[in-house]
C-alpha cells in the first residue's frame, strides 16, 4: 500500500512537472499562433486575448495571395500601407530548408568518419588537427564576418545557396566532430574489435558496427546541424542580397523592423517558419528516443 501511494505521488509530481514545462516551452508559440489568426486592432487591446475573439484567416490569405486583410482597408485618400515584404516568407523558408538539409548531410558525411578516426585510430598529427578543428570556433562571429565576406566574394558565391551551405558547414562541423568523438569514446570497443579480427577494414567497421551503435548521437548531431543552419542569422544577412538566397531569419528580422508590417503578419511568418523543423522533428522522433540499451551487452 505504501509503495503504491508513493508511486502515485511520484507520478503526480512528474506529470505536474511535465505540464509546467509544456506551458513554459509551448506558451509563447501558442500565443504567436493565436495572434496570427487575429486582426491588428484586436491584438492591440489591453489586455490582449489569448483566444481570438474574432478569428480570421485574412493574414494567411494575404501572405499567400496578396489580398489585403479587411482590418486594413482604408476609406479615404491614403493608400493602405502594407508592405509586400511579408509575402517573401515562403521563398525564404524554402531557402532556409534547402540550405539546412545540405548542411545536415554534409555534417553527417564529413563529421562521422572524422570522429571515428579521432576516437579510435592512432595517427600522426591527430591531437594537433583535433585541437585546430575545435579551436576554429573560438573566434566571435563579428570579428570574422568581414573576411568571410571577402572569401565568398572572391569565390563569386555572393547571394547563392552554396555560400551559406559552406559557411554553415564550417560553423557546425567542429561541434559535430567533437560531440561524436566523445560519444564514440564512450561506447565499448568489443564489437569493433571483433569485427576487425574477423577481417573488416576500418571503413566497414565504421559502417556496419559503429554507426548502428551511435544512432542517437548521430540524430542529435544532425538535428544540431540542421537547426543551427536553419536559424543562423548573422552570416545569412550579410552574405545574401536578394530573395534568391535570403533565408527565413533574414526576412523575419527585416519585417519586424518594418513599420508597414503588422504584428499579425509577423506572427504568420513566425508560425510558417516553425513548420519545416517541426516536420523534421516528427520524422526523427523515433530515432531520437530509441534506446541503445538493448544493443549493448556486457560479457
Amino acid at each position, binding site marked *: 500500500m505504501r509503495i503504491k501511494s508513493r508511486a502515485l505521488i511520484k507520478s503526480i509530481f512528474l506529470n505536474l512537472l511535465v505540464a509546467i514545462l509544456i506551458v513554459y516551452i509551448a506558451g509563447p508559440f501558442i500565443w*504567436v499562433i493565436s495572434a496570427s489568426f487575429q486582426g491588428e486592432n484586436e491584438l492591440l487591446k489591453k489586455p490582449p486575448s489569448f483566444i481570438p475573439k474574432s478569428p480570421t484567416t485574412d493574414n494567411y490569405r494575404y501572405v499567400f495571395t496578396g489580398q489585403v486583410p479587411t482590418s486594413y482597408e482604408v476609406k479615404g485618400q491614403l493608400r493602405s500601407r502594407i508592405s509586400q515584404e511579408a509575402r517573401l516568407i515562403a521563398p525564404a523558408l524554402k531557402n532556409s530548408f534547402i540550405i539546412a538539409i545540405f548542411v545536415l548531410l554534409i555534417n553527417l558525411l564529413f563529421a562521422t*568518419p572524422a570522429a571515428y*578516426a579521432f576516437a579510435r585510430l592512432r595517427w600522426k598529427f591527430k591531437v594537433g588537427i583535433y585541437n585546430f578543428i575545435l579551436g*576554429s570556433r573560438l573566434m566571435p562571429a563579428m570579428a*570574422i564576418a568581414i573576411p568571410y565576406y571577402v572569401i565568398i566574394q572572391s569565390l563569386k558565391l555572393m547571394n547563392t545557396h552554396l555560400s551559406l551551405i559552406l559557411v554553415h558547414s*564550417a560553423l557546425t562541423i567542429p561541434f559535430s566532430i567533437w560531440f561524436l568523438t566523445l560519444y564514440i569514446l564512450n561506447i565499448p570497443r568489443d564489437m569493433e574489435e571483433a569485427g*576487425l579480427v574477423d577481417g573488416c*577494414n576500418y571503413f566497414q567497421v565504421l559502417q556496419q558496427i559503429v554507426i548502428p551503435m551511435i544512432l542517437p548521437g548521430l540524430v542529435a548531431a544532425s538535428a544540431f546541424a540542421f537547426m543551427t543552419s536553419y536559424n543562423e542569422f548573422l552570416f545569412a544577412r550579410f552574405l545574401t542580397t536578394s530573395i534568391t538566397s535570403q533565408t527565413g531569419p533574414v526576412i523575419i528580422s527585416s519585417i519586424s523592423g518594418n513599420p508597414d508590417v503588422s504584428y499579425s503578419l509577423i506572427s504568420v511568418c513566425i508560425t510558417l517558419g516553425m513548420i519545416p523543423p*517541426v516536420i523534421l522533428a516528427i520524422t526523427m522522433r523515433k530515432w531520437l528516443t530509441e534506446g541503445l540499451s538493448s544493443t549493448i551487452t556486457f560479457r
Partner: protein
Amino acid sequence: MSIIRTANGSLHRNVSRVFERFYPYASVLPALLVIVLFTIYPVVYAVRISFYQYILTKPNSHPFVGLNNFQDVITSYYFKNSLINTGIYTIASVTGVMIFGLIVAMLLNTKIRSVNALKIIILLPWAIPAVVAGLMWKWIVNSDFGILNGILYSLGAIESYIPFLADPVLAKVSLIMAHIWKEGPLAAIFILAGLQLIPNEFYEAAKIDGGSGLLVFRYITLPLLRPILLVVVVYETMTAILTFDLVYVLTGGGPADSTSLISWFAYAEIYKFLNLGAGIALSIIIALITLILIILYMRALKTEDTIS
C-alpha cells in the same frame, strides 16, 4: 592497429596496410578542407588587424600600434561593466540551461505518457532563430499589450502592467528566461543521447542492490554522463558569452547598458564606432577568455576521455 590476416597472402596485406595508414587522413580531409577555408584566412586577417590602427573614418592611416588596441579596449568605459554583466548572465544562463536540460532529458527517458507531447514540443524553441525568439519574448513581456502582463493582471497578481524591459534588473531576468527557453532544448537533446548510452543493466543492478532514485542519480547517472555534460556545458558557455542576436532584439543592450554584454561591444566597436582594430582586439580577448574557461572546465570535470 591490428594485424589482419587473410588467406590471400602478403600482397593483399600490403594493400590493406596502406589503406589502414591513409584511412584516418582520408576520413578527416573533407571536414578539414571546409574548416581550413574558413579559418586560416579570417584568423590571420583578424590577428593582423588587431595590431594596427584600423579606423574606418581615417582610411589613409594604418600605423602599427602593437598592443594599443588591446589596451584601449581594456581601459575603455564599457569593459569592466559589460564583463560583469556578461559574467552574471553566463553563470545564470548556463546553470539554468543545464538544470533544465537534465530535468527534461530525464523526463524524456521515462515512460510517463504525458512525455510524448513533450518530445515534440521540446524541439520548438530550437526551431526558431534567436532573433525570432527575442522578438516573441519582447512582445510577450511588452508593457502595453504583452500577454504576460495581461495574464498576470487578469489573475489579479499585479495591479498595473510591469515594464519588464525598462527596469535594469527585470530586463536581465527577462533575458535570462528567454535564453534558457531558447537553449534548454539543445541541452536536453544531447543529454538524452548521453542518457541512452547508459545500459539498463546498471540501473537494474542498482535496484537489486536497493539503491534509491537520488543515489542512483548521483553515483551512476552523473558520472557516466560526465563527458556529455562537459560538451554541453562548454557549448552553452560559449553560446552565452557570444550571445548577440537575442540581446540585440530583446533589449538592445538597455536600459542603461544593464544588458550590454561584451559581445555587443565587440560589435559596436566595429559597426558603430567604426574602429575595426579595437573591435577585433576585443573579439580576440573574448576568444581567449572562452578558451581559458574551457580549459578550466576540462580540468574540473577531469574526464579520461582524451583522444591520445
